[in-house]
């Protein structure tokens, strides 16, 4: 799966948790999930669980702790798929 495909899937996942989905229109790899997309910490846990399901992988605590931006999530998933 290409970086673009992973990124699009991550954004599709985020769409289910971001209250103002217009914030996703300008999303970049640097977009901070909590601060820029106004997702709260509990929902970030749900997003990580959803990523595990969609990408068929497992994300441990330390890996999850490193996810702050969309790019962080994409990079992690890309690395785990390699």
């Amino acid at each position, binding site marked *: 799966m290409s970086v673009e495909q992973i990124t699009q899937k991550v954004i599709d996942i985020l769409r289910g948790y971001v*209250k103002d989905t217009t914030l996703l229109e300008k999303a970049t790899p640097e977009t*901070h999930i909590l*601060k820029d997309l*106004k997702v*709260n*910490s*509990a*929902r970030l*846990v*749900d997003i*990580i*669980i959803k990523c595990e399901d969609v990408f068929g992988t497992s994300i441990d*605590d*330390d890996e*999850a*702790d490193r996810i702050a931006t969309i790019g962080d999530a994409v990079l992690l998933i890309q690395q785990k798929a390699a």
Partner: protein
Amino acid sequence: MPGVGNDVVDLKDPENIGKSRDDRFLGRVFMVSERERIARAPFPDTLLWSLWAAKEAAYKAVSCADPAVCSIPRRYRVVLDAEEATRRIGRRTGRVITPRGELFLEVAVSEEWVHALAAGTEEALQRLCRRVKRLEGGKGAVNPSAFVRGALLREIARRLDCSVGDLSVIKKPDGLGAPRVLFRGELLAAEVSLSHDGRFAAFAFDPITLIPAVKAG
């Protein structure tokens, strides 16, 4: 030295209701002993969000001094008074064992919200000015971040006997660390904690730190 942390959870928010039945969420967030307490609790959602808010408040408090500290919820162990934890409404005390040491904890529970406070000492915890406010106009009608900043500044203005216009909330450009307050352009020593969820917003700060940061050293 840890700062101040607070966290509010709207118990009636649709996304929060029934979360105690979400085994994967529970597994990611709570230790086995915490999950067992939630499973046995007469009001499992209330206990779940009390423990969650406690972990969040503790993380905010320790990340004031160390923004790089891990935020993994399972590494923040919450110890609530066992008897108190079985009640639905009321004020509970306890501790949170964090990756940076132990913090003192207070959790207030109403029918509609849970509010947790964490601080480095029992004295600091007791001194904290804490408020939970219902968002005016309801959820979605106002920007909750702006609302809670405004409520905080009104409280500080009242205490300093100044105009709200004399005050502003600042954050570091990277967004890490606790928000700080400027009084007529001068940084105050106070580290403040802001939170919002659903229909509620909350803040906390230590009133004795409403002095210029340079004087506080």
